[in-house]
């Protein structure tokens, strides 16, 4: 019988010291406790954004703005897969976990770069993958949790990769799928569902970490009689979309998780007249019960495909000399939203555009409700141009916040716009249910005279003013990492560079060209006291799709190679001598 590394591990795992075929000895696995998640150590990266507040920030500062120019590759690891590699490497005391498109999970020895085990999921042939990607695993206890594109939640043994349990969250053939990293809190594994393009009814659900039993399930589209149901006419709520496909934030003091929600379906707002709660909103869910405690809708009756799925960063900011328990969201709708979070309410503070936006004509200063230039709102049989494009000022790539310098870093796209027209569409389970007609050039254009598209922006959250902007010729799909070394790390551009920026000025201090475009979430951690930065390269999904449209719009044929590779960087060994 062929004895694989994985099988070997399966035998040895019970000893508590797993040995790989190459002879290395791995340390005992350090279980991920609730306490560790509440106070994650700087040496590890235990969850999607590193901490529950979604800051994407690390206190590590061995690598700083004075020495980052010396950063070099330590090792790399090819995943063997194409499409969008967007997951953060999750690191726990020498064990590193990455997930890939098509739902592979790889456990890697963070010291050596050797594979410990690999989980491979066989997906059904009739799967409809709008977004072939996965945005990371979650750790809890000695388990690894994965939300799959065929709508299963899977629990793996962290040491062996063996399936402990798996449960169907919903039916993939009805259009449900998942791409987000689960959120773990209070012993529950929380996930949201994608499929807003396929006539789903969105929800967030929580499962017992040990058994997989469902703890609660909260729909993002209320049923008749429930609060908010008056904002959905007739039976539109049944197929109203409002997916949740990015990991939420968590405020342990309020015991509330904050999730961003997607747009309603079909895409044209005139098919579902009303505000369509809780679409394009942030919702606050009680971790214990799943109850929606409060919400804020960024914009109502969406017709632009402006999902607002990015979870808000939980940031306490200053206004008029007062500290506000706040949260901040760079909206796909092109506005930067400052909100106040309280136990019983989410209050509007202020909002201003951070990219060119030609749809909103005003924002109510009390409620934050926008008014629209209706000529910019597509409808069934009505074609409209609007900016920013359907991918918005910022799509899913997460922003980061440095609490020391008070700067928020936004990976933005400016000067790109969409043309969209609605067409009638019939619901059929599992089929496209967008009702979007075809427009010239794929419905995409660059503003005349624009000299760039991609941006990395820095905003002072206390003054609400922009500190600096670094621009890129083409689009930017780079998730952001901020560190106490006064650095910002980001890839995202179609030239395949992964870069470090001076967080105070936006100046590029270091860049390395990788195998493919970088749309993975960068992380940092230490091993034996030494700081590392890790990121997945692997262009695909909407970055690739937008590239096709930019090529069309500009008459170019820029090619970005695909293929996932995990890259790990550090300073040279003698750097501090």
């Amino acid at each position, binding site marked *: 019988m062929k004895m694989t590394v994985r099988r070997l591990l399966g035998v040895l795992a019970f000893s508590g010291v797993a040995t790989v075929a190459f002879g290395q000895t791995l340390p005992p696995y350090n279980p991920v406790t609730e306490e560790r998640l509440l106070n994650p150590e700087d040496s590890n990266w235990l969850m999607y954004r590193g901490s529950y507040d979604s800051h994407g920030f690390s206190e590590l500062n061995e690598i700083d703005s004075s020495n980052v120019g010396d950063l070099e590759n330590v090792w790399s690891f090819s995943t*063997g897969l194409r499409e969008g590699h967007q997951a953060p490497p999750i690191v726990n005391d020498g064990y590193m976990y990455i997930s890939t498109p098509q739902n592979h999970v790889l456990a890697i020895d963070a010291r050596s770069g050797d594979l410990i085990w690999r989980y491979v999921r*066989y*997906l059904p*042939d*009739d799967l*409809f993958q709008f977004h072939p990607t996965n945005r990371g695993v979650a750790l809890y206890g000695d388990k690894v949790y994965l939300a*799959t594109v065929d709508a299963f939640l899977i629990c793996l043994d962290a040491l062996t990769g063996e399936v402990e349990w798996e*449960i169907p969250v919903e039916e*993939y053939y009805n259009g449900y799928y998942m791409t987000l990293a689960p959120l773990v809190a209070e012993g529950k594994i929380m996930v949201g569902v994608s499929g807003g393009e396929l006539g789903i009814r969105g929800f967030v659900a929580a499962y017992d970490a040990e*058994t997989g039993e469902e703890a609660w399930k909260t729909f993002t589209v209320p049923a008749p009689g429930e609060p908010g149901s008056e904002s959905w006419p007739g039976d539109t709520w049944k197929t109203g979309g409002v997916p949740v496909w990015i990991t939420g934030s968590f405020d342990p003091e309020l015991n509330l998780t904050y999730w961003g929600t997607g747009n309603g379906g079909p895409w044209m707002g005139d098919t579902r007249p009303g505000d369509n709660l809780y679409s394009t909103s942030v919702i606050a869910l009680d971790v214990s019960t799943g109850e929606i405690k409060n919400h804020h809708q960024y914009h109502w009756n969406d017709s632009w495909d402006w999902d607002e799925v990015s979870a808000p960063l939980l940031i306490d900011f200053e206004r008029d000399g007062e500290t506000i328990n706040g949260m901040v969201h760079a909206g796909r709708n092109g506005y930067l939203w400052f909100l106040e979070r309280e136990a019983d309410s989410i209050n509007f503070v202020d909002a201003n555009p951070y990219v060119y936006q030609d749809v909103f004509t005003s924002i109510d200063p009390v409620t934050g409700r926008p008014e629209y230039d209706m000529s910019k709102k597509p409808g069934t049989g009505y074609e409209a141009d609007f900016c920013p494009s359907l991918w918005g000022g910022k799509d899913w790539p997460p922003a980061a916040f440095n609490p020391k310098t008070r700067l928020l870093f936004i990976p933005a796209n400016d000067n790109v716009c969409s043309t969209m027209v609605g067409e009638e569409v019939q619901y059929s389970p599992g089929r496209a249910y967008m009702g979007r007609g075809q427009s010239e050039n794929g419905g995409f254009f660059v503003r005349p005279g624009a000299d760039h598209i991609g941006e990395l922006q820095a905003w002072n959250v206390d003054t609400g003013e922009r500190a600096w902007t670094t621009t890129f010729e083409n689009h930017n799909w780079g998730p952001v990492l901020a560190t106490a070394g006064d650095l910002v790390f980001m890839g995202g551009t179609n030239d395949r560079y992964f870069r470090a920026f001076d967080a105070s000025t936006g100046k590029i201090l270091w860049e390395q060209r990788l195998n493919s475009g970088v749309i993975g979430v960068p992380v940092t951690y230490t091993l034996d006291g030494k700081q590392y930065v890790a990121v997945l390269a692997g262009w695909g999904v909407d970055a690739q799709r937008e590239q096709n449209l930019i090529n069309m719009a500009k008459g170019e044929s820029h090619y970005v190679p695909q293929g996932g590779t995990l890259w790990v960087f550090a300073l040279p060994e003698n750097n501090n001598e």
Partner: protein
Amino acid sequence: MSVKGPKKDQSPVKVTRRTALGLGVVTTMALPMAAVAQPPARQKPQAGDFLVFEEGSNQGEVVRPELLLLDQRPVSALARDPATGTLRSGSRLNRVMVTRIDTEKLTPRYQRYVANGVIAYSIVCTHTGCDVTNWDSNELLMACPCHESQFDVYAGGNVVGGPAPRPLAILPLRFSNGEVIVAAGFTGRVGFTQQF
């Protein structure tokens, strides 16, 4: 593979067909049994089946060449068992897009699959399995709305743009008594491309 069946004492899994598909070990045992038990509506189009329009002004009618105009946007269709009347609608992998072309202009090796100008391509994109429903009327290309893959209807569904790794499968047709009949099963594998 580290894919193993769930531990019975811990698993809340309800074993469904989907569950079985998700588990590598179980899959190898379950698939042959599933093939035997495949209900007619889920079976792929069979030689001798009619094609029936699934959408548009001719929805429900048997596909005939005169119901299609030359080089127009393809429309979706399903196979129907002539003996039982069963519509093979049980799997999205069975759906095809039909259009009418000038057979003389089609790459010669595919001409035998055409029935009096009518050609049928699988609707399922070979990239990630989306329905290929868009149409470039200038270039006469089928286009995927998900990731912009483009397929040339005059070149056997060859990929001419976007990330799709292989052509759309053709459903071979023949012409008989004024109607379009399925001549054989799909020319290639239908569905997205599982990597690795």
